[in-house]
């Protein structure tokens, strides 16, 4: 099921020297970001650093004014939401992902219903497929079935539904925009479980977060953006711990630059 045309660790999405302007404001001034197959990349940055512009660029919502986007080594232009989705990148935006008054199965197949020639929904097939996807990402609770209403689920479980929907599209890369913001500890753990299940299936996750501890727990590699530019990046092993990462980000916020010399050389 998982796409296997490139080796784990090889670049799957590359943003090169991305520039994005809104009028006279330059939100991104030459950001280069490489997402590698099979990793969980943590994307960090303060408010206004360009984080959400970068996420929207990944999602294809923004077509960059400068630079280029490569997917599996091939340049994609124009870069639109549809192009991003066709390239296997699925973005789950915070809060706007789901129709809360409807069932899990209806949400998973939103816009991509399985129908017969007359356009009638193939209910059994959709239910089976939804069951399979829910199992795949670790929805183990017996309380839910695909007919459960999304509005009755907890915040973490809703993220799970959004992730399951991304999987249905056979996405190679799943971009999660602040999936744990406003979630309790238990709910955050649920989201982490879903993210690990996605990673275990060989897929790639880009995890955007406010809470550095959350991102630290789940990510393999970190990319920190500041004032429209990449401030620093590094594998988890390059940091001595979450406090090291936080210290560098505080230093960045106070002095405008972080001392990358403290990063350990990755093995």
């Amino acid at each position, binding site marked *: 099921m998982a796409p296997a045309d490139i080796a784990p660790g090889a670049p799957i999405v590359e943003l090169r020297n991305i520039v994005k302007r809104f009028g006279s404001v330059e939100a991104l001034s030459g950001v280069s970001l490489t997402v590698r197959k099979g990793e969980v990349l943590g994307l960090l940055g303060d408010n206004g650093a360009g984080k959400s512009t970068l996420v929207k660029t990944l999602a294809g919502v923004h077509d960059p004014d400068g630079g280029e986007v490569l997917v599996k080594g091939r340049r994609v232009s124009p870069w639109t*939401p*549809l192009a991003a*989705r066709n390239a296997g990148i699925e973005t789950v*935006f915070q809060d*706007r*992902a*789901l*129709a*809360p*008054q*409807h069932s899990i199965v*209806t949400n998973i197949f*939103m*816009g*991509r*219903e399985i*129908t017969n020639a*007359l*356009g*009638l*929904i193939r*209910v059994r097939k959709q239910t089976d497929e939804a069951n399979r996807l829910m199992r795949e990402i670790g929805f*183990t*609770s*017996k*309380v839910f*079935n695909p*007919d459960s*209403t*999304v*509005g*009755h689920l907890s915040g973490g479980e809703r993220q799970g539904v959004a992730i399951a*929907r991304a999987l249905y599209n056979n996405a190679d890369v799943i971009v999660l925009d602040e999936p744990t913001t406003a979630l309790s500890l238990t709910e955050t753990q649920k989201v982490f479980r879903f993210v690990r299940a996605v990673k275990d299936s060989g897929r790639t996750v880009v995890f955007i977060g406010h809470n550095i501890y959350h991102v630290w727990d789940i990510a393999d590699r970190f990319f920190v953006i500041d004032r429209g530019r990449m401030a620093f990046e590094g594998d988890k092993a390059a940091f001595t711990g979450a406090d090291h990462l936080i210290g560098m980000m505080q230093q960045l916020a106070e002095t405008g630059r972080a001392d990358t010399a403290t990063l350990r050389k990755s093995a």
Partner: protein
Amino acid sequence: MTTAPAQTAAVDKRGTPGFWRMFYRRNGRALNAFVTFVLVWAFFAANNPTLFLIPAYYNAFLFSVPATIIMTTALVFVIVSGELDLAFPSVIGAAGGLFMTLVISGVPILPAAALTMLGGAALGTAIGVIIVYGKISSLVATLGLNFFIVGIVNLLAQGKNIESRDSVSTFGYAFFTGKWDIFGLQVPNHFLIAVVWTVLCYVLFRYHRFGIRVQMVGDNPDSARQMGIDIDRIRVGVFVWSGLAAALCGVILVQTANMVWFPTSGKAYLLIALAALFVGGTPTWGGVGTIWGAFFGALTVTLIPSGAVGAGFAGFWTDFIFGLVIILTMVAHRFGGARAR
């Protein structure tokens, strides 16, 4: 039954809902509307049991209810998509006029009805396009368009009725208004048409891609757009469906009036159809709705005026009972289906 793993039980105390619980969760609003209808009927019948147990008493009811059923079930799509249609009475009137114009110029009734429905769909498309691509609130736009279309119809008709009493003996007329006698109850064909229409709406709403997408657009338009649903097209689509239903209503209304069309035809249905819709359990906030609820809502609001008189209430009680039923059902629906956010 084997016991659930201890871990699941410890974390999650909510049980797996049973069949009936799931059934109520999925159909609660329609069931509430059905119970409302039965209660209203029982309340009237208790006051005058002999009259309410005579099948023939319901002949007039079955004769007048189909137009409300057809319009209300179609309006479910509009309300669920998050829009509002106040222009459908004018489309009913315009469609009736178009139908009679075709009939008196020699077109047989069935082709004339088909052409009228096409015309209704076209008018619905125009209304939808104005709202969606003009980015106007549908409340304001359809309020204005209702006056505008009624105005044009009045200008064209010069205030005169159109009659074609000769057509009453044709097959097409019998197709719409012929009656089946069942134990003294006369079931007219247009009631059966209304039932078939309701089934069609139900399948379209619940099992067709279009209906599902209407619900998605009403529930969370941002999400629907992100998932690649063309929400503008869906929004125009609900007005096309409403126009189609209004045209069918127009065709039926002139025939139940013995092939006479009045320029004011359809005007009376604005508040009745909307009341039926909300009594039927479709909430105002969009995203969810029920076709069978709308069906029973239409039965309820049609029963109230004649039923109140039949039960021995003086005519001036009608509005009071009407209002009471609407408000009480609204309260009942709150229990049946609070909004899931």
